């Protein structure tokens, strides 16, 4: 399958409300096991957090040469996903704004499984100036 051509990310051209389309994947037991091991929690129920639904939706549409730092997440949990089931994710650009002279975008994703169960809604606040964060937090030698 040929990968779809990505659009070059341009902050100024990004539109609030822009749909990022949808995609499907099957959650495997291995993904769940890896997630649980990675966060050292054998009862963790939402491996979808590590799949990063919203960022994945964005990456399937945009070639982002700027990069990003995650400034915050808002998650609503509705039903834990079940291994073996297909998950359908729909993404959109929920907002963009400047704060303290820094550009942010807000990506939103909703996940529903093949039985129509709503699993999770996720919003990520992305700072689209990652080098600024690096300058702030990297200890200077």
């Amino acid at each position, binding site marked *: 399958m040929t990968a779809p051509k990505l659009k070059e990310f341009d902050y100024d051209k990004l539109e609030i409300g822009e749909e990022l389309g949808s995609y499907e994947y099957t959650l495997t037991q291995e993904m769940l096991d890896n997630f649980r091991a990675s966060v050292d929690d054998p009862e963790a129920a939402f491996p979808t957090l590590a799949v990063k639904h919203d960022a994945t939706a964005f990456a399937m549409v945009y070639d982002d040469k700027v990069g990003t730092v995650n400034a915050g*997440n808002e998650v609503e949990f509705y039903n834990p996903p079940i291994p073996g089931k297909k998950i359908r994710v729909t993404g959109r650009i929920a907002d963009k704004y400047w704060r303290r002279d820094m550009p942010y975008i807000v990506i939103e994703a909703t996940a529903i499984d093949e039985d129509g169960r709503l699993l999770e809604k996720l919003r990520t606040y992305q700072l689209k100036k990652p080098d600024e964060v690096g300058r702030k937090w990297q200890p200077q030698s």
Partner: protein
Amino acid sequence: MATAKLEINAEIPSVSKHVTQSSINQFESCGILDRVNIHNDPEFAQQRLGFSAPIASGRMSVAFAAESLRKFFGPQVFHHTGTINLKFLRPVKHGDTITVSGTVTHHEQVESGTLVTVDILCENQDREKTAVGVATAIVP
């Protein structure tokens, strides 16, 4: 859960997690796009952030907070009505130990039960805040 837990200033169970590059990489391996990023590739982290090493995804801290909240509310409540809103204040990197704590700050009656609000704090081993936020769940 006991009603007493809903009282204002009640503390949720604290969890502490030691973060390593291995755990960061394993978290990243759960994604469906096979690509390098600032979490799993030192060169990429250097290029994008100017950091000498990768940093952990903030979503790991969301997962840590979710564990605390699940233990407090119970999975039947938190996995179906829970929310987490975290702001990331400071990078988490290999070798850090992140401790999640939280306190009930508000509750109110809603149609399906009691909406309980919890202030969440994530700190590293030096007691520096790495993330703060708010979580909620509706207790029937």
